């Protein structure tokens, strides 16, 4: 397991709580504002997930799609996302893990070996590729390259996946696995705890890997419910909506970051395990 992830899960266990992982698209709405937002997020999150934007994503809701397009318009590419993460990690005081999340095409074009190298150079702790083909040699290559440098490869599991798929997926999954709470798009529905319980049961049967839950977690109460049955709550659309609305209302970058921080502060209050 990646050391920084190991630390946050161990710390949370000791404090009898779950972890909070926050997601934003990198460089949304621009490089400097995104930097402010990520620094602010690092104060309230146990880990930060940074989206590497792609204009033909197949799993994102309109909210995240808009964020992708804002980031691309501001000049985002894989290299700049790494630069952003590196700068943020150099500035923040704590050493919380940062993840890079996105679709395969930007990784493939950047080249898998170079991607792994940049992960190390930019102090990235983990990587999620939403659409990676479990059967492809490229998927194996990413897993192996990241394993060599202690960067987590986090795999996704949803309520529609059966045990044989889960078993196969877990073999290439490290640090934690990301469980979708429902079959749908990011942030489009309410969190579904029954689905999470079902997936968690199948994962626990086959592995001791920590479980992070995403999709539909927006409120302190959602966070509280989710962490009772998992190790981490992952929040994305709620944060990205604040950014989207802020951009529409022409709020300054600093105020945007403060708004995101306030939202996360409130969510953090739901992390205790009962």
């Amino acid at each position, binding site marked *: 397991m990646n050391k920084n992830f190991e630390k946050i899960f161990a710390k949370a266990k000791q404090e009898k709580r779950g972890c909070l992982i926050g997601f934003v698209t990198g460089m949304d709405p621009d490089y400097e504002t995104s930097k402010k937002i990520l620094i602010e997020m690092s104060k309230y999150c146990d880990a930060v997930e940074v989206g590497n934007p*792609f204009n033909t994503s197949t799993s994102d809701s309109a909210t995240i799609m808009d964020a992708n397009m804002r980031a691309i318009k501001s000049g985002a590419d894989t290299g700049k996302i790494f630069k952003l993460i590196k700068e943020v990690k150099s500035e923040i005081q704590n050493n919380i893990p940062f993840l890079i999340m996105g679709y395969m*095409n930007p990784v493939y074009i950047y080249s898998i070996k170079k991607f792994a190298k940049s992960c190390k150079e930019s102090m990235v702790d983990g990587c999620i590729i939403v*659409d990676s083909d479990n*059967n*492809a040699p490229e998927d194996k290559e990413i897993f192996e390259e990241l394993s060599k440098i202690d960067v987590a490869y986090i795999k*996704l599991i949803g309520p*529609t996946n059966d045990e044989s*798929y889960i078993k196969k997926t877990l073999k290439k999954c490290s640090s934690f696995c990301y469980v979708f709470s429902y079959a749908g798009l990011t942030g489009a529905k309410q969190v579904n705890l029954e689905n999470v319980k079902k997936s968690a049961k199948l994962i626990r049967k086959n592995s001791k890997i920590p479980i992070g839950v995403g999709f539909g977690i927006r409120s302190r109460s959602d966070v509280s419910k989710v962490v009772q049955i998992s190790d981490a709550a992952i929040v994305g659309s709620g944060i990205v909506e604040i950014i989207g609305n802020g951009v529409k209302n022409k709020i300054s970058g600093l105020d945007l970051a403060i708004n995101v921080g306030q939202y996360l502060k409130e969510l953090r209050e739901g992390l205790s395990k009962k």
Partner: protein
Amino acid sequence: MKIEPFKEINPPDKNGYWTNKKTGETYGGTWISPLLIPNLRKVEKSFEKALKDKKFLKGLEEKLLTFIGINTPILYSKELTDIAGGEKKVGRIYLKRTDLHHDSSHKPVSSFSSCYMAKHIFKAKKIICETGASMHSRSVAAACSLLKMDCEVHIGAVDAEKVSLNKDISELYGAKIVVVQDSTKTLLPAMASALRSWQSNPDAMYVVGSVAGPSPYPRMVRTWASIIGRLAKKQFKQITGGVPSTLFAVCGGGSNLMSMAYPLLRDTTQIFAIESAGEGIETGRHGATILGGGKMGILLGFKSKVVMHSAQIAESLTEASGLDFAAVGPEVAYLHDIGRIKFRSTTDLEAKKTFLLCAEQLGIIPAIEACYVINAALKEIKKRKNPKENHLIHLCGSGESNVARMIKFKRENE
């Protein structure tokens, strides 16, 4: 004419990849959210079952013969032959008239087959599809109307305006139209939107219009679509005594091309795929993936040749909504890579002029997509100068929905 049983002559591997054995390059796969994996496996199982189910195949054949009208003629075009230089210089030019199908294009064969499979084997109550020129949505919507299934069509906002007749016909058949405002507002974001919708509606079946998407779609769509080519091959033999010397078909994603090319892959026929050069490939404003510098990339569930700016999928620009796709299907890219299919291109202006030529000299209003192929075929056939050859051009659709734009073009250029 009866439909011949299907023979798999270019199978992908069990994970849906075609591999160039010389270079090791792979095409296809399942590059999609894990949430859709079970749906895809269900589609794959349904497809395998369908191919072996005699009752299903008999029912499908009857519908294709009587509802779609799949026995469209192959027309010897003396006019095009003369334009190319005359029979004594270039041989004969024939047109496969899939514009005469029900719903006026090659699309209904694969669309109807997929919907028929969705109804009887997959047991879906709802179909989700994407569309560019709305030929696909129109035929899916007609199938859904006949088969009593719900139909949800995703169309880019630009295309919705360009080909409003086909869109309106889809709506009249009962389809729910979702106009997609994302990205380039054309076929590519429409397909991404349809895939997203399927992720939220796992009980529905997604019906892809091209030989693209995650496995098993590229293989399934070309298998259904190639029913056209199987019949055409038989017809052509009856007419000429052999296989075509050359085959010309237009290529956006590649369903049109593969519908005719697939049964000829192991024959001596030289196969030409025609892309849209838009305003000219050198301008960067085109719809040509192979000739426009497409590189290996991954999008919408598959790995293939893709036109990109950095790692973002590029905007393709062409008069023909049906060719407005910044990638080609994986099997098409593979066949190009191994040298089995050659590519040529036609500009928008050349295609528009060919549209007027067909209307004025052939008495046919072809879909604008078909005009790219007719133009490129004439150029190639003129160059070949072989009087012994018999050439086959896929006239893949009717141009009713292009009429408003083309009458404007005609009047402006008179």
